[in-house]
Each structure stands twice: as C-alpha cells, then as structure tokens.
C-alpha cells in the first residue's frame, strides 16, 4: 500500500536577480510516495497559498522527462540522486520518512537566478544560435534517401541529439562548464554527412561562444553523472579533436578530403 512521508524542506527563496536570497524551511507532511518531486512542491505551494503566502516559483512543463524545463539541485545533486532521471520523473518513494531535503536552483554564473528556483538558461540558446544547425533553407532539401547515413553513425549522432538542454551538466560541474551540452550538439551534427560542410566552422564558433559564458572543462566527469539522458563524455573528446582540427585546417581545401 501507498506510504505517506513526513519531510522537512529547505528551499531557496530569492525575489529576483538582485536579492541575495536565503533558505526557508517548510514542513511537507502526508506526502504520498507515488507523487513526483514536483507534485510534492505543488502541495507545498497549495499550503502556502492557503496561508496567503507567496508560492515557490520553479521551472517545469512536460513532466515526462523530455522538455528539459525542470531543474533543481536536490540535496546538492542536479535533478536529485537518481541516475538518468529528471526532477519531474523523480518520485517520492526514493526518499525516507523524516528526511530533510535541500532544494536549490541550478547554480552557475551563466545561469542567473530569475526568481526562487527559476534560472535563466538562455546562454544555451546563444550557443545553438552560433552554429548549432545545418544550413538548409526550407525547400532546398534533396530526396532524403539520396544521402545514406551509416547506421552506426546515425545511432551515435542520435545518442548525442538526445540532450534535452536542461543544464544539469553545468550545474553539476565544479567549473560551471558547458562542454557536455555543446559537444552533444556538435556530435549530433558533425557525425553525419549532412553536417560535414559546416563542421569545422560550427565547432569553432560554438566552442568560442561557449567560452564567453561558461567555465573551463577539467575532466571531472560530474556532467555525465548528472545528465538525465546519460550523454557520453566521449563527445567532449570528439569536440576537442574537432576544435584543434578546426584551428589547423585550411577550409578552402575542405572539398578535397
């Protein structure tokens, strides 16, 4: 039968970007173990509204682990302790009665807090805008089967493309680096034939843009541990190799090899 949990929550409250912020303690009693973590926060918010207090703002949308909107550091871990799980898919049965849970926003200089647990991750959009696409205007495509893609390459490209852009990699990184996010998009596009003509230009501009927002990678691997889609660290190595190549290559001769 369904168990009920009584929990203590320490939640980061911050009115806006200029407010220094602080922790507030809330009691979460009678929480069903079948609830998701976000539904537990819904209940706390219902209680706050009942008591005419301001509810906690947090980012969320699809609640099925694919949109990448939800975030949260739960007990110091991005998306909580479960492997390969977004916060919306984290269920309360993973916690014990009497636990104290610390809930904070994703913290990184490139992710300024908007309010409470909501952060601004638009720096990710800037990275994509700098080259995370294949330039093909609508209508310009040839028949899809004119460009075969070796299955293994297509599968690896997909493994990288599975990134949901949540930012857990950055939040988990001691340097707030965005190598895993950036390399995932680069691997998605650089591993397939369609992406070859812009491969090195794309690598250079995306890495350079990334560097303007985020810290440097020192190979901790925390990003991969926190990633709800288990994006591989191999993609970072692939990105680094391509970045060096991009700096060395004479792109005027790219058509020859």
């Amino acid at each position: 039968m369904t168990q009920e949990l009584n929990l203590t929550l320490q939640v980061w409250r911050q009115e806006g970007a200029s407010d220094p912020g602080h922790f507030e303690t809330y009691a979460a009693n009678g929480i069903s173990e079948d609830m998701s973590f976000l539904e537990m926060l819904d209940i706390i918010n219902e209680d706050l509204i009942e008591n005419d207090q301001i509810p906690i703002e947090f980012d969320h949308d699809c609640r099925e682990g694919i949109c990448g909107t939800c975030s949260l550091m739960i007990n110091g871990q991005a998306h909580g302790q479960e492997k390969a799980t977004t916060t919306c898919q984290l269920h309360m049965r993973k916690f014990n009665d009497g636990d104290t849970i610390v809930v904070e926003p994703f913290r990184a200089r490139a992710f300024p807090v908007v309010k409470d647990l909501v952060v601004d991750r638009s720096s990710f959009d800037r990275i994509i805008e700098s080259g995370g696409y294949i330039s093909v205007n609508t209508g310009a495509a040839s028949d899809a089967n004119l460009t075969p893609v070796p299955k293994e390459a297509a599968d690896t490209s997909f493994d990288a493309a599975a990134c949901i852009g949540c930012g857990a990699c950055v939040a988990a990184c001691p340097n707030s680096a965005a190598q895993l996010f950036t390399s995932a998009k680069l691997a998605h596009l650089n591993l397939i034939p369609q992406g070859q003509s812009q491969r090195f230009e794309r690598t250079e501009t995306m890495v350079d843009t990334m560097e303007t927002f985020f810290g440097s990678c020192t190979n901790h691997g925390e990003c991969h541990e926190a990633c709800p889609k288990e994006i591989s660290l191999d993609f970072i190595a692939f990105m680094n190799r391509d970045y060096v190549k991009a700096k060395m290559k004479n792109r005027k001769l790219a058509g020859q090899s």
Partner: protein
Amino acid sequence: MTVLNSKIPDGPVADKWENHKFSTKLVNPNNKRRFEIIVVGTGLAGASAAASLSELGYKVKAFTFHDSPRRAHSIAAQGGINGAKNYTNDGDSVHRLFYDTVKGGDYRSREANVHRLAEVSVNIIDQAAAQGVPFAREYGGLLDNRSFGGAQVSRTFYARGQTGQQLLLGAYQALAKQVASGGIELHTRTELLDVVLKDGRACGIVTRDLVSGEVASHSGHAVVLATGGYGNVYYLSTNAMACNVTAAWRAHRKGAFFANPCYTQIHPTCIPASDEFQSKLTLMSESLRNDGRIWVPDAFDDTRSPSQIPDSERDYYLERKYPAFGNLVPRDVASRNAKTVVDQGKGVGTLKNGVYLDFEAAIERDGEAAVRSKYGNLFDMYQNITGENPYQTPMRIYPAIHYTMGGVWVDYNLMTTIPGCYSIGEANFSDHGANRLGASALMQGLADGYFVLPYTIGDDLAGRLGEATVPTDDPVFAEAEAGAHDQINRFMSIGGTRSVDWFHRELGKIVWDYIGMERTREGLEKALSEIPALEEEFWKDLRLPGSAATLNSGLEKAGRVADFFELAKLMARDGLDREESCGGHFRAEHQTDEGEAQRDDENFAHVAAWEWNGADSVQTRHQEELTFENVALTQRSYK
C-alpha cells in the same frame, strides 16, 4: 447562406494546391523585408513557420512563453511522422495517405486541405533529414519506416520514441540560425494577452513579459497563432502543464471563429492518476496492446491482488465483445469500454480508476527476455512512475486526453476570420476532422509551418506593399493594453480563498465527466449549468498571492483558466448541437447496435464554426458544408 468562405481552389483535388500556388500573388524577394510578421508559439508549427518566413526575407518577431523555443510540447510526441514516400514499395502514395486521413477523420475534414497535407508530407521528410534529424535507418543507411496506428502501409518515419523531440530541435535550430542572422527577433518568457485589430484587420498583439510583468504592444502586418491545442481544459491530460488556449481564445473574442471544439481525442493507454494531486497523465505507447491482455475483475469492488484472481473470475472484456480485433480495437473503442467497466465499479488500483493490461500470457509464451526487448523502456518507465514491476504484476492503464482536433477556423490559406490573422498547427481545426490518426500531428504542424503558410501568406501581403504597420502608440493598442491591465488587476484584487489549481481541477472534473469520452444530452446540459456556476465562484473566490510585477505563475495560470472556462462552455454547446457521433465525439444517443459511432452525414457533414458575440451572450453557430468528391463515406466496424 454561410458567412464562411473556405477559399478552396477549383479543379480536381490533386491539382488544387498546384493551381493555387500558381494563382497566389507573390511578394517580390526585395520587398519581403518590408513586411513584419508576428509568430506566436515556437513549437513545430511556429518554429518552422518563423524560420521559413525569415529565410524568405520577411521580418519576423517570434514569441514563446517558455524560456527557450525548444521547450514547446511538440517535444513530447513519441511515435512518428507520416510521409507518403513509398520507400517500402508497399503501395503507398499521396492519394492513399489522403484517403486514409479523410477516412480516419471520420469524414469531417476538408478534402482539399488533407490532400495538400499528403502532398507536402514528402517534402517534410526531405527537409527534416537534411537538417540532420536522426530518423531511424536501415543498415544500408537509408531511412526506416514502420506501420503505425493500424495503417496498412509502412509510411511512418520515426526517431526512436522521440520523434517530436528531434523534429522540434530541427525546427528550433533553423529558427536559431535566423535569430543569429537578425532575421528573427525572439521574445522568450513572453505571453500573448490579446490580439489587436485596427479597422477589422489584425495589426499586432499585446503581451506580458512573464519575468518583469511588463505589458507591451507589438505591431506587424500579419499575426500567426501557432499556440497548440486545448487539452488542458481537462486539467489532467498528456499535455504539458503550461499548454493553454489563451492565444486562440483571445483571437476568438476578437472575431476569429472557433471550429468544432467538441472534437477531442483520447489516448487509451495512459497511467491512471494515483491521487487527487496528480498533475498530469503519462502516455505509454499503444504498441503495448499488441501483447498485453486487458481485463477487470468480474466482481464489483474486488480488492484482491490480481494474482489472486483466477482466470475464471476475470473479464477480458475487449476479447469478449470484439472477438476479431480483441485488444487491438481502435483508440476510441478501447477507451470507451474502459470507461464503461470503471464506471460500473470494476476499476482496479487504489482509486479504482484503471483496468489491467496483463503481460503474463506474453511472458509465458515468448519468455521475459523477448518481452523486455520489445517493451523494456516502457516497462521501466511504468515502474519508475508507479513503483510496480509490470513483469510480475499487470500494468494499470486508463484513457486520457492527448490531442484536440477542434480549433481556430481557417480558410485554405490558413487565415482566420480576422483578416491578417492566421492559425497553424494544432491550434487550427483544419486537417484532422473528428479524429486524428497516429503520426499525423507532427506532419500537420510542419506542413503548415514549412510548406503552406510561407506561400499562402504572400497572397494577402502582396497587395499591401507600402502599408506601414500600425504604430504601437495608436489608440487600438492603448485600449488593448488597458484591457490586459484590467484583467490582471481584477485577478490580483479578488482576494478569495482558493488557488487557481483548485478551480482548474474542479473544472477539469466537469469537462471530463460530461464532455469526455462519451457524451449525452443530459450530461452536456449538466455541464452547461455546472461550468458557469464554478466560473462565477472563480471570479469571486480566487486567491493569488504575490505581485503582478514579477514572475508569478499563479497569475499566468489564472488567465489561462479563465479562458478554459469560456472554452468549456462552448465545447458543451458544440457537443450538444452535434446530434451525431463521429470520431472523438461520441454521443451515447447515436450509436449502432454494435456500439459504434453513428454518423449523420445528411445533417452533420459540416464544420461548426462559432462566432463570439460578447461575454454575455451565446456564440452564433455557422456551418461550412463539407463535400466528399473523392472519398466515399463508409461506416466502421470492428466485430
């Protein structure tokens, strides 16, 4: 005489789109930059439209209430996208996709629109593949296809169980490229509050910056609404939490007719709610019905665990009632039967709100490893959410709302009844009739955005060369902004006792009970008396702590729920007037002896499009007659 002009081109159905493209007026490439187009919503339809329009040279302003265009709920579509490529050599063609879609829509869609959709479906696949969308491939490197949703041919392209995600990322990246080039001005965390008209024509929108609370005006030569469906009117649905009808509804209040609101679609295999506070329902692939057996206990209120109920005391009701199709009957039939047994008190689970989907026979027959290889990820997902191991105990499933076929009425050019205002994707009503086929939603969103709107929008704009946009200090904008402020102030000053979510949940229960899977005259009339009562309470007893000058998700929800109240009433009215069953609209009074939907083609082969008459009066129902010259009308049977 109808006031609706669908502008369907003349000629044979297969030539209409070709002819129309030729007769459409063009805007010279150098003149496109002189037009500003507002695109609201950045899902599949909105992102693809914004990117394509910008590539053509139009100045585009794109708006999303999300923090990034990539969050739109198109991202959650699992199954696939149809394309009449006939790569599998199994006899598919544009005509067959057209035929299947008209039939699947239970003969309540426009033939001309559906044919165009089937025609451009092949271009969508080419476009997406060129963008790097990682569709599934064969070992030779060519694209793989599968049959989907009971189709007789394999025409569905897919990207694992994440086709929507990958297609959306493709469109988002195309949009991002145009943002970087300066062709698109992107506004994130910005929600539409009103569509603004000058002299009867759309001239812009009023928005609220969700972070600062600032209400602002934006003007353009055209306004495109790509804001998705209204499934969240049910509160519990497979939609994302923020999906809403607000943009479409506020356009409706300004003169855009709203068509067929009672056409909503149910998905039969979702995980049932576990408690009152459940916030959404999770869909699991329908493919599970290929190997799972659906049953409930024979006895009412049987509290034994499933393993203790012997076979002789179980009712495999689909196998019993539909021996030929068994557990594989279509979505609506499976859903209605589940509702029947649960309503009888035979539901399973703590809340008695589900039916069993049992894999015991499949595991005995094929072994656990074989079942795991087919459905492993779905079983894991189920276990993660429910804490139960479906290899050992049957899954519990129940139907949930997941798509809405109704929406803003549009003509063949995708223009609404407000000149200059367009609607694309799930937000419009045009292509799916009374029922959407699997793998057709992604197709329609991208067809509208990539390949239809970019052509058709020129027809209206071409004649407006040299017309300036209406300046945002014009009184029409000031008036709309004042209206938006009034509504915000009204919400903030009610000072009642209940949260927005409470009202939304209560509304959802009424809509689900009376305008859900099965409707009756009595139920719909009940909805029409209960919804206004709850709505009145909402406006009296809502409590919204906090300020309007900051991020305030309660305030955002209040505006959306206010619109859901008005929509729900129209859904009930539309369902009441449609005295037939068709597709997702099942009126219990209109069924065959076999319990199938009984259409009334003589009296209801038309689109019902509703005209707003002000908040205090009922909308006027207009009809657009549907003619079927290429597809013969038939009756379904699954016995």
